[in-house]
């Protein structure tokens, strides 16, 4: 199958004019990118602060008050209610008035001095986020509060304060690439990939179907163009649009969200281009299969869901069973997430990313090939 570049050029010109004529489409295209980037980046945070807390203080002494204060100071809890019994706390959690409750038994301070105090913290287990943040925060506060108390009692008993709570092994932990564990830094390199994949697959999936539904496909088929030329002429203007969206997203990521770009921007550009091409190709495959826009949309939505949940974007691929992992392998985003995080955050080069890049190349060739084959079959 040989390409005639003159014909291809003419076709691309036609597609470009068609896109440019529809100003609203371009606005929507870029607008959607921006809206998604902002909404997802600002909302993708799992840490929960200021959980509403109910306090039952049957002891009413300085120690219990100090502990509640320590919980509030940690920023993870806000005291919103004082109640009288555990039953009332459970009721308040049932009603979702509070997410957590703390119950101090009578004579709390006295039992702390004896070194055997215990108290109860209740967490709303129907709320995943309240549990995950609340459990670790409450545990940490209790631990450091306890250490502080024991240090004080050691000092009071006259022993040397040097041995206060010292552990024989101290681990200093460093988080590479994202030292403050900033949520936005985690999210942005992956979100960019997700937005691009969504745009590319969806637009490509609709393009051909729309021509068919509108009946304009016949006119093109009446001309001497080849199917590969038609496919490429559809792909290239969309590719340019996607690159525009990519540039905007990366620019905003760096300058608005302040996520530093550690790697080689040039390499990133080329690999992103490859990724977009593979997504567009996948969209075209969907397009050749689907007969209505509804079908095309439904199929691309499935890929979008797979992209969100099976590619390692939000949920880890470590420990994922084989079947979902294999399905995730069929989504281009799986490879681009590794590339994007690798270049953007880690600053590594092709020597670590060549396998993902190679897979994307093979993927692109295969989908474009399938698309042009299927397209031919559907001509009659």
């Amino acid at each position, binding site marked *: 199958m040989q390409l005639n570049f003159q014909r291809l050029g003419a076709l691309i010109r036609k597609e470009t004019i068609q896109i440019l004529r529809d100003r609203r489409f371009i606005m929507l295209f870029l607008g959607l990118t921006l*809206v*998604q980037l902002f*909404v997802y980046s*600002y*909302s*993708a945070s799992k840490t929960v602060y200021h959980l509403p807390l109910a306090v039952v203080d049957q002891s009413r002494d300085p120690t219990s008050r100090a502990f509640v204060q320590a919980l509030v100071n940690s920023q993870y809890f806000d005291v919103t209610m004082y109640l009288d019994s555990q039953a009332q706390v459970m009721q308040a*959690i049932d*009603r*979702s008035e509070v997410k957590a409750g703390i119950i101090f038994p009578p004579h709390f301070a006295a039992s*702390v001095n004896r*070194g*055997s*105090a215990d108290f*109860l*913290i209740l967490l709303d*287990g*129907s*709320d995943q*986020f*309240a*549990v995950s943040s609340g459990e*670790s925060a*409450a545990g940490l506060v*209790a631990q450091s509060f*306890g*250490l502080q108390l*024991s240090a004080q009692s050691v000092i009071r008993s006259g022993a040397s304060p040097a041995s206060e709570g*010292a*552990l*024989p*092994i101290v*681990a200093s*932990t*460093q*988080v*590479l690439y*994202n030292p403050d*564990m900033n*949520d936005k830094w*985690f*999210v942005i390199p992956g979100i960019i990939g997700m937005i691009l994949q*969504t745009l590319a697959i969806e637009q490509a999936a609709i393009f051909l179907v729309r021509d068919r539904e509108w009946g304009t496909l016949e006119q093109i088929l009446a001309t001497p163009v080849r199917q590969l030329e038609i496919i490429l002429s559809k792909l290239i203007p969309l590719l340019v649009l996607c690159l525009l969206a990519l540039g905007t997203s990366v620019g905003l990521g760096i300058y608005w969200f302040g996520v530093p770009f550690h790697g080689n921007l040039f390499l990133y550009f080329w690999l992103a281009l490859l990724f977009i091409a593979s997504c567009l190709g996948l969209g075209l495959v969907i397009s050749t299969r689907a007969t209505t*826009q509804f079908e095309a*949309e439904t199929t691309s*939505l499935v890929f*979008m*869901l797979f992209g969100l*949940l*099976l590619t390692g974007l*939000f*949920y*880890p691929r*470590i*420990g*994922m069973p084989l079947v*979902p992992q294999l399905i995730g392998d069929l989504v281009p985003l799986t490879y681009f997430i590794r590339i994007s*995080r690798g270049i953007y955050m*880690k600053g*590594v080069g092709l020597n*670590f990313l060549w396998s993902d890049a190679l897979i994307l190349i093979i993927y692109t060739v295969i989908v474009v090939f399938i698309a042009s084959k299927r397209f031919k079959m559907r001509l009659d």
Partner: protein
Amino acid sequence: MWRRIWAITQKEFIQLWRFPLVLIGLTVGPALELILFAVAINTNVQHIPMVVADQSLSAASRSYLTAFTDSGSFDIVATAPDQAGMIRAIDSGQASIGILIPVDFAAQVEQKDANVLMLVDGSDSFVTQSAYSSAEAISQQYAISLTQQQLSPLDAHIQILYNPDLQELWFLVPGFGAFLLYGIALKLTAFAIVRERELGTMEALLVTPIRPIELMVAKMIPNLCVAVFNMALTFSLGMLIFGVPFRGSLLLFSVLASLFAIGSLGLGLAISSISQSQVQANQLASLMNIAVLFLSGFLFPLYALPPVLRLLGYIMPMTFFLPIVNGIITKGVGLNDLWTPVLSLTALTVVIFFFGALAFRQNLD
């Protein structure tokens, strides 16, 4: 009025039956998706790949590392001579965490003054957070076990209500069922009106004496049947296969879930009436479909959202349905504890229909 609605409803049913394959896909799809994703998603990361630079190679360092592997959270996949080697392994993605144990570790432990360095891959949020917190906890526990002293004079009992063992699927299945239902409902109706308009059949409908709100109701009834069937299938499969307990009233749940389905279908119709073309409707619907994951409190907590985004979440029925599903299924509470989200959901549904009918009328000319 009811005769008019019934006539259009019949027409819609016939159109729905015309594509049985699509219908099967729509009804069985969500149940399959639920199974797939429930199996796939685990936020409790185990077997995190770890690279070790053990320069001490002593009994003390081996016993320290055993604490990590025994926990099940970490697998040692590589060894490195020094810190640079560890960083290389993390750079390449081979390992997600590295531990450097210095040469004189054994002697340092004797003097109660040992330092180890842990490096965590900060490029993947879930893995980073799990690795960070479990590595610190394991190290600390091991250190405490070496000293025999009692460290803390107070003992916090943390009790998790409703889901004491933190079963992940109990968190996931109710919300996921709701999400899939929402997606299907939007999909079912987002094309309903704009398709008629694009195909030119809208004129035929307009010359009939049917009113906009009646048309919307008529378009909704067949889709509601599909959605309700869907929901029953998805939720019962979720409960049966994954053993998620259903603690509350099934009747109350059915009523409120139908209300939610009506609200979501209405949202799809509203999208359909404000869209100029199927492409636009499709784009809006997909946008709403992803946005709901982020803004309804399903994937990320609602109360951590910036206020503007929280307001956006309030136009989605899912935001109010999530506390209802969790309340009925996981907590087993009844209407008296749920009246706020129930009222909000009802009000939102009414607003959606009102707005949809208004947009429909304005879009006619």
